């Protein structure tokens, strides 16, 4: 995967522009959510849980040749769809890239306004967690060098 974060964000923005109604956009997100199935069952517990008022989000991470790999899940299909979009942008990247990502697509697509901004869904907490992982990874990596 050689595309930059920016390129993928632009892809997503184009995709969302393609839909006319929010009804359609939601359906697309739900489809993405239904397809997100690779989360390890044994990790769906409190240790990996991110606080969210109405829907729970779980996230696990590991590292592979200087890249960080995330897997995440939620009990909400919509939130899973958002996770899928988010991981499409952030997964399998270096710590610096993740830390510096502005994630403007959430605003530009209107996802933030429609879904991501409600405190209820835990997405903000998840983005936070992803960035914290990246910072922790970087600190560890730098102290090794």
């Amino acid at each position, binding site marked *: 995967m050689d595309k930059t974060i920016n390129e993928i964000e632009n892809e997503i923005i184009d995709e969302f522009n393609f839909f006319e109604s929010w009804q359609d956009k*939601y359906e697309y997100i739900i489809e993405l959510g239904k397809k997100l199935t690779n989360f390890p069952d044994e990790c769906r517990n409190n240790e990996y849980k991110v606080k969210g008022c*109405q829907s729970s989000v779980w996230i696990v991470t590991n590292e592979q040749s200087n890249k960080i790999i995330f897997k995440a899940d939620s009990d909400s299909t919509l939130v899973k769809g958002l996770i899928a979009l988010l991981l499409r942008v952030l997964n399998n990247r270096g710590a610096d890239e993740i830390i510096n990502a502005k994630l403007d697509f959430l605003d530009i697509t209107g996802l933030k306004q429609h*879904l991501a901004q409600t405190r209820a869904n835990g997405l903000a907490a998840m983005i936070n967690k992803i960035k914290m992982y990246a910072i922790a990874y970087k600190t560890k990596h730098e102290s090794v060098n």
Partner: protein
Amino acid sequence: MQDTLTKKLFDVDNIRKDFPILGTFSNGKPLVYFDNAATSQKPVSVINAIGDYYRNYNANIHRGVYSISIKASDAYESSKRKVSEFINAKSDREIIYTRGATESINLIAYSFGADNVNEGDEIIISEMEHHANIVPWQELCKRKNAVLKVIPVTDTGELELDEYIKLLSDKTKIVSVGHISNTLGTINPVKDIISIAKAKNTNICCIVDGAQAVHHTKVDVRNIGADFYVFSSHKMYGPMGTGVLYGRAELLEAMPPYQTGGDMIENVSFSQTTFNEIPMKFEAGTPNVEGAVGLNAAIDYINSVGFDAIYVQESELLQYATEKLMEINGLRVIGTSQNKASVISFVVKGLNAFDIGVLLDGSGVAVRTGQHCTEPLMDKLCIPGTVRVSFAFYNTIEEIDIFIDALKKAIGVLQ
């Protein structure tokens, strides 16, 4: 014949014209507002009363010697009298304005609790209480080393009165229960609950959380026998920021003040401060005259519609919506008490409440999803949350049809 008569009692189309927001659009669709248990919408008479207040006689009250201050004081006092009549208190001295039901309960827990609850004493609440009627008691128990006892709820969402009777003991000092459950809609037999407690010991202090009741049914605090009764203006068509604490004068007089500052004192000196009489003793700081004026207008509005008409319309909505929901495959209504207000919680098998709520919003339908500030109840029922629809008298059968269609579509997309 009877039916046409009832219909004439109440013309919902006309009523709806009184609520400007009901004519607005949400996501391009007419707004269907089914989150009335969270907060109600406001009739134009309430909105105008607020505007009129600020345009014509806004002033600080009680100590003013000038005309608009006297007018504002009069408005504040007559609002108190209106509330007092509305719930049949003995006197407007028994009506304290707070910020909301939550603050009212905090005030009781702090101030009544200060002198009347001691180590080992027991406080009884129920499993279906709103957090506002749980956490202040937990905190009081922590401060005093007292014990919280909890009346269990049946599978249909009713209080287990047998268990309640067993919980009552010589150590029971307070019983505090909700009049109507904001999650289940259950109307609790508060009059019975209180008379059982009083039969055990007349000194048991009986508190009713009426936040979900005062706008659905005529409340008579003396008939119920409550020592304290609390509710919020914003859930009864009045403005936000005002709540009511009714308390029997005798109890209020004996209680120490809660917040302190202006208006609640008689004399202040650095050596000694004495406090004002009730109700002022419990109203520290500049009173919210706007809120009082708005609440007054809200009660006038409720009275003009009338509880008979409100009951007829809301019962019809409750019944119709329940029937339509029951027809949906995999849907389960949570809270099936015989005696219910127009609040319906439900879950759909395999689906997340939040997802359903978001998709309903896409169709212009506003519902609440989650735990509704009743987490212990959710835990007891072993569900993570529900979708809740709650109706006011201004809602219609047609709106329920729109909701049911949107719900079916949402379920289809999510499954």
